[in-house]
Structure formats: structure tokens, C-alpha cells
């Protein structure tokens, strides 16, 4: 057991906990029985304080390994501490891909379930939880095998449940057949937000994968100019010499913390300009590798250090389809406040799954990386929360490090249902995190 300082990926809210790495279900159960406050942690890619618990016990899931053979139907059982990177290294050479991948491969399967992660195919395929056939979970009241058929309530409380129902030890999911390690990509530039949004509404359904990068720094007529990239897995006959190679390890890394303020409104503006201009105006059927299409930032290890010691927050909102103008107002508010945002990502969500605290809802989602520093930032984001709330939208817990607890219930109307299930399997509220405390997810008065 070691005491360690833990951060989220945004490196904003450190706290100290005892960190242990149980290697089996029995060891996880023993820790849950011994400790008053516990949360599981994977590779620490949640941006805020989801996988830490100050003064408590944090169970690293990284020793919960093991991967079964992939069945001819694509079914595989994987230890919760296996990362998508490790799973892909095993699966791609056999012609299988994960059904959903977030923007990084460096998340564990346990983390993917806790945050119910989504990818560029949400509009068609839903989020990670949609593809989980079954999982093993250890709770303070016992270990269970759960699925959409077997204790569906605990299953859907756990999908997106931020680790607060128990510690997932293994996951059975259905993989996706691929013929090559390439993606066929169409890229298009749009001079404004309206153009890209109407194109996405109109034709996203024709593509398996779709995402737009939006410039939030330009004001005026070109506010929200965007690059839309959409693609599908390449079939064997789409490319000259089809291969099935696992993604390479990153070759670049950030060796030390950059000075805070390196990413300021000027440097981000310059970056955004270059990024926008470097994209082709219109390009069709370009083959790209899986990693450059899905995980471009994985090419640089520890890129979060570019934000310096003060760190950064990610703000991700989703709003219903009818509230597309909320996206416009949010970008307008940001661009006029001069708060630097690097790489704003816009995407359409398809139908939600029954996950009680799962983030996606049918409509739009916008994600922004914002360096901590500008005095206006806390208030700008509080204002955006109001905007999102009044549009019937919500904020993503896995990204959050600053939401106010009084808005959570309205954003997540199934919270009470979630709490009922949690109280059934964890009546003493042993599972807890800094995020749960900050957002009052499990109720201050109950402790």
C-alpha cells in the first residue's frame, strides 16, 4: 500500500489516497469490506476528480488483466484493467476492432464502463455500454454477474455510474469485424458553424464515423468555422495492400511541464489558424490509419503537460436535437469572452442507452479544452451550464471538475433511480469519489 497524489488528466485537483492494486475478485472484495471509502481507478484519463478519493482508498484496476480468445462471433471477455490499447494490439491482427473507442486508447475497460464512453460512431452505434454483453462486478454486498438481462437495474446503474456501484473486474463485449487497419475518410472545411451543423444533420447517417473540429477563437462571420471528417472502415478491396497491424507506441512525449500560459488566447489562435488552413477544403476517400483517425493525440505521450502546472478543464455538453442553437450560443459566448479553447469537438449523438447516469442524449455534443488561468473562465462556464440546463442538456461527469452540485439533479433526472440501486448494493456508501463528494452524487447527509 502506498500513499500517492492522484490527479485527473486535466491536473487541476490533486488529492492523496492509499493506492492498492488488487489482482483478483477476492482481493477487491476484501478491500471493499475493510475500507470506509473506496473508488476504482484505471489509467487516470478522466479529466477531473472522478477516479480519486482524498483520504480514502483507491483501487487501481491495472492488475485485473486477462483476455479470452475472441469467438467467431466477436465475443471476448477481458479483465477490467486491460486498456483499449492492449485489447486492440491483440484484436486488430485477428481482424477485430472495439465497437466504440473514445479519443484515446489509453483507457481501461473498467473506465470505459464507468464513464460509458462514446466515440465518433455514437450517432449509429451508441456508447460503450450498448456493446457490453455481461460483466462481473464486486460490490460491498457481494460479487455479481450482471447484464441487460440479469439484474438490468444494477447493470444500467453501473454503465456510466462513475464507479460508484462497485468495482468491475471483467467485461464481456462484442467486437467489430474489420478487414484492414485503414479508415476511408472524407474531409470537408466549412467557413461557419451553421454550414457544418446542417451538413452533419443531413448526411451523418451515411457515415459510420463522424466528427467536426470547430474553431472557437474566431469572431464575426467565420465564427465556428469547422473541419468535418467522416469515415468508414476500409474493406480489403478499398486499399492496395491490406494489412492488419496493431497501433504503434507513441514516439513523441512531453518531457516536462510547459510554462503555464504557453497555451494562451494568442497561441491558440495561431494554432487554430494553422490547423484550419492545413485541412483540405474538400477531400474524398483518403485512406488513414486507425490511430491517426481515432487517436491522433495518443501519438504524443503526456500531452496534458503542455497546459503547464495550472492544468486545464474540459467542458463537454450535450443538448437535444431541438436545441442546436445552444451550441451556437455556447461558441458565441466563448469566442466573445476571449477564453482560449483549443480543439473544440462537435458531434451528433444518436439514441441514448438506459444508463442512469450515462451522458449521451440524442442531439449534439460539444467538447472544449480550456486552460485554467483567465479570470473570466469560471463565470463563463457557470453561464454555459445555465444555457445547457435550460435547453434540457447536461454536462459529462468524466470531463467535469467544476460543475455546481445544485444543477446535477436537473441534468440527470434518473439520479434518484441510480441512488436506489446504489443503496441496495452499497448501503453504507463505501464507494465514493472526490467527484461524488463535490457534486453531492451520493448525498452528503447519508454519510
Amino acid at each position, binding site marked *: 500500500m502506498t500513499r500517492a*497524489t492522484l490527479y485527473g488528466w*486535466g491536473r*487541476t*485537483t*490533486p*488529492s*492523496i*489516497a492509499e493506492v492498492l492494486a488488487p489482482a483478483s475478485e477476492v482481493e477487491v472484495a476484501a478491500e471493499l469490506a475493510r475500507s470506509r471509502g473506496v473508488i476504482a481507478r484505471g489509467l487516470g484519463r478522466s479529466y*477531473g*476528480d472522478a477516479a480519486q478519493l*482524498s*483520504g*480514502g482508498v483507491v483501487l487501481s484496476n491495472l492488475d485485473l488483466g486477462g483476455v479470452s480468445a475472441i469467438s467467431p462471433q466477436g465475443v471476448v471477455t477481458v479483465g477490467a484493467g486491460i486498456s483499449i490499447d492492449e485489447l486492440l494490439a491483440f484484436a486488430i491482427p485477428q481482424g477485430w476492432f472495439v465497437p466504440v473507442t473514445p479519443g484515446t486508447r489509453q483507457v481501461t475497460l473498467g473506465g470505459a464502463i464507468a464513464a460509458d464512453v462514446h466515440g465518433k460512431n455514437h450517432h449509429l452505434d451508441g456508447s460503450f455500454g450498448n456493446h457490453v454483453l455481461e460483466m462481473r462486478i464486486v460490490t460491498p454486498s457481494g460479487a455479481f454477474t450482471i447484464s441487460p438481462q440479469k439484474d438490468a437495474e444494477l447493470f444500467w446503474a453501473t454503465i456510466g455510474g462513475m464507479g460508484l456501484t462497485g468495482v468491475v473486474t471483467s467485461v464481456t463485449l462484442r467486437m467489430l469485424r474489420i478487414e484492414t487497419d485503414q479508415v476511408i475518410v472524407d474531409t470537408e472545411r466549412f467557413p461557419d458553424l451553421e454550414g457544418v451543423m446542417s451538413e452533419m444533420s443531413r448526411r451523418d447517417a451515411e457515415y459510420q464515423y463522424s466528427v467536426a473540429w470547430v474553431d472557437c477563437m474566431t469572431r464575426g462571420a467565420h465564427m465556428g468555422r469547422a473541419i468535418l471528417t467522416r469515415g468508414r472502415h476500409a474493406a480489403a478491396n478499398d486499399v492496395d495492400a491490406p494489412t492488419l497491424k496493431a497501433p504503434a507506441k507513441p514516439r513523441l512525449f512531453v518531457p516536462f511541464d510547459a510554462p*503555464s500560459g504557453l497555451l494562451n488566447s494568442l497561441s491558440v489562435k495561431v494554432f487554430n489558424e494553422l490547423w484550419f488552413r492545413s485541412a483540405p477544403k474538400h477531400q474524398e476517400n483518403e485512406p488513414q490509419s486507425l490511430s491517426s483517425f481515432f487517436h491522433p493525440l495518443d501519438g504524443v505521450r503526456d500531452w496534458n503537460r503542455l497546459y503547464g*502546472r*495550472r*492544468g486545464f*478543464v474540459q467542458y463537454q455538453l450535450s443538448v437535444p436535437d431541438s436545441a442546436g442553437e445552444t451550441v451556437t450560443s455556447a461558441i458565441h459566448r466563448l469566442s466573445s469572452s476571449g477564453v482560449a479553447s483549443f480543439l473544440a469537438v462537435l458531434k451528433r449523438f444518436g439514441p441514448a442507452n438506459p444508463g442512469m447516469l450515462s451522458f449521451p442524449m440524442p442531439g449534439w455534443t460539444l467538447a472544449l479544452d480550456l486552460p*485554467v*488561468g483567465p*479570470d473570466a*473562465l*469560471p463565470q463563463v462556464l457557470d453561464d454555459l451550464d445555465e444555457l445547457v440546463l435550460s435547453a434540457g442538456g447536461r454536462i459529462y461527469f468524466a470531463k467535469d*471538475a*467544476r460543475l*455546481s*452540485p445544485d444543477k446535477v439533479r436537473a441534468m440527470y433526472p434518473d439520479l434518484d433511480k441510480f441512488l436506489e440501486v446504489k443503496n441496495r448494493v452499497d448501503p453504507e456508501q463505501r464507494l465514493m469519489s*472526490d*467527484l461524488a*463528494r*463535490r457534486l453531492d452524487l451520493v448525498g*452528503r447527509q447519508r*454519510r
Partner: protein
Amino acid sequence: MENAFGQPQSVVVLGGSSDIARAITKKLAAARAHTVVLAGRNQELLNAAASDAHEYGATKTDTVLFDAEDASNAARTVTEAFEKVGDQVDLVIIAVGLLEDQLSIENDAQATARMAMVNFTWPVAALAEIRRRLVAQGSGRILVISSVASIRIRRSAYIYGGAKAGLDRLCDGLADSLEGTGVTLQLLRPGQVRSRMTEGQHDVPFTTGVNEVAENVMRGLGGRDRVIWSPPILRYVFAILRHLPAPLWRKIMDR
């Protein structure tokens, strides 16, 4: 829990009825602070500060009475304040201080000892208990109100400045001792501030109001600098002033 911008949800303020403390508390309550416990020596002023906090958004407020002229009550006062919070404490502010007219007390052993007690000894005793509790908690922040008067000590306020200097330097070491504990300590070094404490004194250059100090504190909590200067330019002003030859220093500061 504190959020990414260093905005706490639960706050203990020792010396909570001082004007600077009240201005800071209001801003904290307007941001994320739902629980505020204020400790001080005057119940009436504490109640007023608590109702301020309520008005600005705190949902739970409480008060603790104590006398900073007796260091034997420091640990008990901290304990009582933490118990009244009843949960994790995200931020403890030490705003205890006493400024008397130097010229009328500088030959009085009791009065000078009192100044040293309130500005130095009591806060040091309180810090020991705060440190113990926050380290056990694994997170938390301490804000100690020092003063630029501690950076170069003036003839006309050497008792106050000297006591603050002791506290300021001690906190520097204390902050080092907290590395790796999840707890951080920051020092606030305001210049002259218009408040009850400085009533009747004339403004010197860079004098500010309490709201400006509170704004600088909110900004400082969002960063990780150990020292928060208010106004920020005083960092540079004092980098020069502290190296002035003594005759020149006396001439400028004690006209």
C-alpha cells in the same frame, strides 16, 4: 471538495469578522462555498458576517467564539470549527490579526506581547491543529493572511510587522512540509487596505479596498503560487523596497 478553479465548497475562517475575511467569504459563497464556519471574538460581528455569507449563497453557516489573546484555546477552536462543518474542510483562512498604534504601546511589555500573541503565537498554534486535520483528510488548502508589512519592517509598525514576518516565514517552511500531503498553504500579502483595522490611517500608494483583495484571492486560489500579492504589482515594488539602503527606507516610509 475544491473544484478545478480552487473554489472550495466548505470553508472555515478564523478571524471571520474582519473586513478582508468578510469580503473573501462573500466571493467564496457566491462561487461554490455552501458551508461556511466563521470564528472570531465578537458574536454580533460574526452573525453579520454569517448572514453576508448566506445572502451570497452559502446554505449552511455557523460561528465559533474565541479569544486570540490566549493560545491555549487555539486547538479547541479549530476542532470546534471543523466539527461544525461536519464534513471535509476544503479551505481554512487565518485572518486573525491585531493592529494597535505602535507609538503608544512600544514601551509596554504587556501590550507588545499581546500583539505578538494575536498576530503570531495564536495563528501558529491553530496551524498545528489545522495541519494535522487536513493532512489526515488528504486534501485541503490553507490561506494565511500575512502583510507586505512583513517583507520590510517599518519603524512605525515593527511590532505588527515583526509578528507578521514571523508568521510569514514560518508558513513558508510549513508549506514546504506539506509537499506530497495533498494539502497546500498560500500566503496572502496585501498592501495597505482600507478597513476597520486601518481606520484613520491615510492612504499610501497602492492602497486598495477589501473587494480588490478578495478578487486577488479568488484568482490566487485558482493558481498554485505560494504567495498572493494584492495588488499584484506589490511583488515587484517590494522586490525593490526590500533592498533599499536603510536611511533611504526610513526616509520614504516614516516621513
